[in-house]
Every structure is written in C-alpha cells, then in structure tokens.
C-alpha cells in the first residue's frame, strides 16, 4: 500500500508547545513516527558562563513554565552539595510544600489538556477551575503564580505563617473535593475509556529499555520515583510511588490522577511538620565558599526524573550546567508507542507523555 507522510506539529491544536512528528501512514494507520525538535531552543545552559551561580537560579527556573520551582530546587540542591551545605529543616519542608503544589497544579493542567485532546472540553474547564485555587495558593504564599522564585542556595526565601498554613489546608479540602468529584469521569467514563484504554501501550520491558521516566514509566509497572532518593524533606514523609501496570494512555492518566491526590497528602504531612516546629526558625544557611567540583542531582518533576549536572571551577561562575529533562527521556518511548495506531489516536497518545518541549530544549 502507498505510504503517506503527514506532518504533525509543530503547530497543532493539541500541542501546547512545538514538536514536529513526521507520521508515515498506511491508509489510516501509523507505521512510523519521526520526531524533530529544536523549535524553542533558548541556550539557557550556556548562560551559566555569563551569569554567576546565584543569578542562574532565576534562569533555570525559566527552563520550564510549569514546574519552575523543581528546577530551581534541583539546581540549589546541587550547589548545596558542592558547597557542603545542608538547608535547614524548615527550608526543606517548605521546599516539599511548594514542589508538591507545583506537581498538583501541573497534573491538573495535564489532566485538563488530556481531556481537551480527546475533545472533552467540559472536563478540561472543570479541572482548570480547580487548578486556579492551587495557583492562588502559590501566588499568595510566594508572590507569583508559576515562577515562584523561593529557592536560594542554602534554603528558601519565604516562610509560611500559621494563618497561611491554615488557609492552605482549607483550600486543599476544596481542591480535593473538586478532584474527587471528577474521579468517576476521569477513571470510569466510557467515553474517556474508549479513547484511552488499550491505546498507545508501552510494555514493561520496553519502558525500561527505552529509558522512559516519570508517570510514563510508572504507568508501565515500574515503581521508580526520584522522591525515593529522599531529597529535601522526603526522608521524614510517608511516601510510596504510584504505579499502574496496563501501560496504556489510561494507566498514565490514572497515575497522574492518583499522584495529584498523593501530592495533597504530602503537602499536608509537610505542613503538619512545619506546625510541629513552631513559627519562625532559620530558613537559609550562608554559603561561604565558591562552587568547585562536579555534582549530579536528581529530583522528580511532574513529568519524571530531572537531572542536573553542575561543574564549578572555584569562581562564582559555573563551568557547565547540563540539564536533562523527563520529556527528553520520554520521546523515544513516544515514537515506540505510535506505530500501529489509528491516526485519530495520535493526539491523545502524544499528550499522554505530558510533553514539555521548552524543558526538553532549554
């Protein structure tokens, strides 16, 4: 049968960011998918040579427009490791609070976009309505909705008082009620099921061999989550990775849905520990030396494992900053999922890895 090549992206209604896939079709069936990247490269890693290591915090935050806090946290953790510092306990707990709030709003954003990718506009609106509450919490506690800028080398810049802790708890009650209200729709609605169950299956072995990360990997049955490394204050918190075994779009959606509930639980646990510590307390430790040596740090972003490699040379400027983001790891998995699918299922499957292209290209 004659083959047709259909360009998918870089501008496509389902894609929030530009990635191009050349889809080779036989009739309506995808035979091969070839990705092209490079539409939003900004050269942020190279800026490390021009901005000093403290200015880089604000720059690495802009790698991702959704999980900015986690990038800054990973970077600061790396520098702290290089300088031999440990952030105070309160700062580590606060980092958990804000990083989990970021995961929560990122997963709500994704669940909305996922619903949108299958044409379920009403669910999309509902989820984004709930997400706004989380964004308000971010803005009220840190000063900004997304680019929160709370991390500094050695700790955090902002603190939570008792009033704010209570307010976050109250807001989370509403958010949880809202999400649970939609649970039946997301997990059991027949329309959603028909567009997601058994579609874009990534087997357990394939997921591991292709180096998938985050919910894409956990949706295929691997209990691998960087929070198991016990960074920040995760050593004090009760945490189990969320795993699904089906490996299809539904499983990846289900992992993210359950993780959003888990994030709220982690925020509550961290808030409880903050309350136990009493108000006030040290938020930062001062760095006395200049960064020297090599360091590799990892954190779990909403999309998966994010890796930072930092190399210092004893000056204020880092010699190298290398960022590997989860979407980059998930693109090979995506190209393996697409062959054999109907063309109409491509948008849903592409969205199911939660592509963050600005992250990938930095």
């Amino acid at each position, binding site marked *: 049968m004659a083959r047709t090549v259909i360009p998918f992206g870089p501008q496509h209604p389902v894609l929030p960011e530009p990635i191009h896939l050349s889809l080779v079709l036989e009739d309506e069936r995808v035979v091969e998918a070839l990705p092209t990247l490079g539409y939003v490269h900004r050269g942020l890693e190279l800026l490390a040579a021009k901005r000093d290591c403290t*200015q880089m915090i*604000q*720059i690495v935050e*802009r790698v991702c427009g959704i999980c900015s806090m986690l990038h800054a946290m990973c970077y600061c953790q790396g520098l702290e490791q290089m300088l031999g510092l440990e952030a105070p306990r309160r700062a580590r707990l606060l980092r958990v609070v804000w990083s989990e709030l970021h995961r929560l709003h990122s997963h709500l954003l994704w669940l909305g976009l996922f619903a949108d990718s299958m044409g379920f506009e009403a669910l999309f609106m509902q989820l984004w309505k709930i997400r706004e509450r989380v964004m308000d919490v971010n803005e009220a*506690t840190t*000063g900004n909705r997304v680019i929160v*800028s709370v991390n500094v080398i050695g700790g955090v810049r902002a603190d939570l008082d008792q009033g704010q802790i209570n307010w976050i708890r109250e807001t989370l009650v509403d958010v949880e009620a809202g999400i649970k209200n*939609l649970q*039946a729709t997301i997990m059991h609605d027949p329309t959603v099921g028909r567009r997601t169950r058994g579609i874009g299956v990534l087997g357990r072995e394939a997921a591991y061999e292709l180096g998938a990360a985050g919910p894409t990997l956990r949706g295929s049955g691997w209990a691998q989550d960087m929070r198991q490394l016990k960074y920040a204050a995760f050593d004090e918190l009760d945490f189990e990775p969320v795993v699904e075994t089906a490996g299809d779009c539904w499983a990846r959606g289900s992992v993210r849905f359950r993780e959003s509930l888990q994030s709220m639980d982690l925020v509550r646990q961290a808030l409880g520990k903050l309350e136990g510590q009493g108000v006030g307390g040290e938020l930062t430790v001062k760095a006395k030396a200049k960064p020297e040596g090599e360091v590799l740090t990892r954190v779990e972003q909403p999309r998966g494992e994010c890796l930072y490699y930092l190399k210092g040379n004893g000056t204020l400027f880092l010699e190298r900053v290398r960022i590997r983001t989860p979407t980059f790891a998930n693109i090979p998995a995506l190209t393996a999922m697409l062959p054999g699918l109907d063309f109409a299922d491509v948008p849903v499957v592409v969205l199911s890895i939660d592509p963050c292209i600005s992250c990938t290209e930095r």
Partner: protein
Amino acid sequence: MKLLPTVLANLFSRPATRDYPSYVREPFARTRGELVNDISRCIFCGTCARKCPSQCLAVVKDSARAEGSWSLEFFACVGCGVCVEACPVHALSQKTTHRPVAVARAVITLRAALPARPAKKDKPADNAEPAGKDEPTEKDEPAG
C-alpha cells in the same frame, strides 16, 4: 455521562469566573509586582545591578557632577525581587500590582544627587541622610 451531576450543579451555582474588568480581585499581599526605587534614599552602590539575573538595571555614579542615575528597563525586568532583598538601604520595593501595558520599549531613569558621604557598613541604612536637595526626576527614554 459521568460528568452530568457536575454539569447540573454548575447550572445552579455561581459562576467560577469574575466579571473582569468591572470586578478586579485585590492582589495578594506578597505578590511581586512593579519595581519602585525611592531615589532619595538610593546611594547608587550598584548592588541591584550586579545581582539582577535579567540585567535590566543600570546604575551610573558621576562623581564629578555629584550625581547618580538609576535606570530600569522594565520590559526586561522579571520581577524576581532579588534586587529588593539585596538593596543595602532598602530604597527598592515592589508594589503588589503590575505596570500597565506599554506599547513602546522604554527605560525609566531616575536621577538624584549622590549622598553627602557614603553610608557606613555597620550603620542601618534606614537612618541614612536623605540624598541632596535635587528633586528626583523621572523620564522615559526610548531604548536604543
């Protein structure tokens, strides 16, 4: 079908959105908005310009004319608040609201006389002498 109860509940509940712009929500107290410099307190040390990650600030000290200038390219400012924290005399602050939309790229330049003597490091800067008699001037200059 599973969404039907939510849809029905939405029909009989208040709208989730506000009637913007006739109703605007009050900004949160911590919101980082427009950057303001109280130029009468500025000692033109240049710390803000050195710390700024987006390099939108420039401080020039003209000792011959005993005058200093502080300029902000507000299109480049990302509102991170690093300069506000770094300012040794607390001359910089951030409003909770944002600057209105501008149609042209511009630089805000504030000028004032240099302080009579440099503020001592051990002295809290809030007590620093007001800087000279010159009125602070604000003017917008188109950037190159």
